């Protein structure tokens, strides 16, 4: 019995480590359905602000568990994850305050690949003609893009733009 519980726990930890399960929060009241379809049977409800565990995504649907109930809920009713911080300085190997491109001492530090791009950087930016030319050199024709789409079996379809909600 003890052994079983331990292995179940180990499996759980493995699943967490692999990022297989992720938590989320319901952005609004919604229903849980038996399958990822709008006309599937209702198996429960989820209230705005409720914590859910996300099992997987299939197109516009998440399979979730809410307490002991499992089901499918519209992806747009859920916000993924908990608030987490991303820190560009850490990602760059511990150099501080890189998002402004400057170290704490006010000196410019070497920021290859870790430049911040805040209001100040944009306002003081200087036109770089060579960089613009370079960017333009990567542009592709419509025909090239179409061939690329065909390779990915992307098929164009007609669809009208969405009216604003409430209209």
């Amino acid at each position, binding site marked *: 019995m003890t052994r079983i519980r331990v292995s179940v726990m180990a499996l759980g930890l493995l699943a967490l480590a692999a990022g297989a399960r992720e938590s989320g929060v319901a952005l609004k009241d919604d229903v849980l359905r038996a399958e990822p379809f709008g006309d599937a049977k209702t198996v429960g409800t989820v209230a705005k602000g409720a914590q859910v565990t996300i099992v997987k995504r299939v197109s*516009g649907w998440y399979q979730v568990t809410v307490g002991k109930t499992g089901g499918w809920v519209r992806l747009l009713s859920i916000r993924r*994850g908990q608030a987490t911080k991303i820190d*560009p300085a850490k990602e760059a190997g511990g150099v501080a305050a890189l*998002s402004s491109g400057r170290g704490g001492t006010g000196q410019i530090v070497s920021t290859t*690949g870790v430049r911040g791009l805040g209001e100040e950087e944009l306002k*003081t930016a200087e036109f*770089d003609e060579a960089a613009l030319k370079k960017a333009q050199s990567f542009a592709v024709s419509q025909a090239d893009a179409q061939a690329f789409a065909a390779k990915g079996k992307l098929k164009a379809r007609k669809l009208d733009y969405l*009216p604003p909600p409430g209209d």
Partner: protein
Amino acid sequence: MRHAIFCLLVVLASTDAQAQDFEKTLRGLRDQFTAPAQESPRAEGAAPSIPPFGEVPEADEIKIGQRIAGNVLGAAPLVGDPALQRYVNRVGRWLASQSERPGLPWTFGVIDSNDVNAFAAPGGYILVTKGLYVLLRDESELAGVLAHEVAHVVRKHHLKLLQQTQLIGAGTELLKQRVGKDQRVQGLIGSGAEIMARGLDKAAEFEADRMGVVLATRAGYDSFGLPAVLQEIGHLSADSGAVALLFKTHPHPDERLARLGEAMGSRFDGIKDGKSLPERLHKTSR
């Protein structure tokens, strides 16, 4: 309305000594209101002007966009990965081909910054930061991001913002003595890439989200690429420097998701063959 604007210009002019030049400018502006903008008789190679009302000729829009994109690139250069740059251009051009402005000189790029953001300059110049790119998990998510930016260009959101700014700035900007043409364009778009640091109104962002989802779907992608990216960004903490400007210039991702959810509803339930293409997403080193 027109009367009010003229009053505003007069107020601005009265603070400046060059009142005579101002009158000329005022006459010029008035002519622009009454004459179709496309036929503005400018000498070839002259700096584009931004009429405060009406259509900006496409050639001018493109020049303005090039200038802004060149400024953003001055702050953060392209990532030195030609295969990546070519890849985003292919995805982007395919999306733009589904829009109402397929013939613009669409140019896409990934720029070397760990900030999470994307920029759409008029005329079809779209830049995405590496910080945003590395968050993407498949091609449909890249398509969602690029399609949102394509929508800004199609609807001329930033160009209109520039026009509005011009309206306020016209009195002082146009009063300046003739300067070199590049400086003059610079004067018209503000300093550096200031316009890209300014937020559009919320309605424009919600519209770009709704259009982005449709453009990606038209292009054959899974419709939920953009929502998935908004969910990813939504749980980044607002006090992280990397999303500071994005959060300042856009409604919170949760609000965008909620609005998009209302607009999409069950309309996409019938579309089941959209592609995600995770295997084709070009991997770039962080």
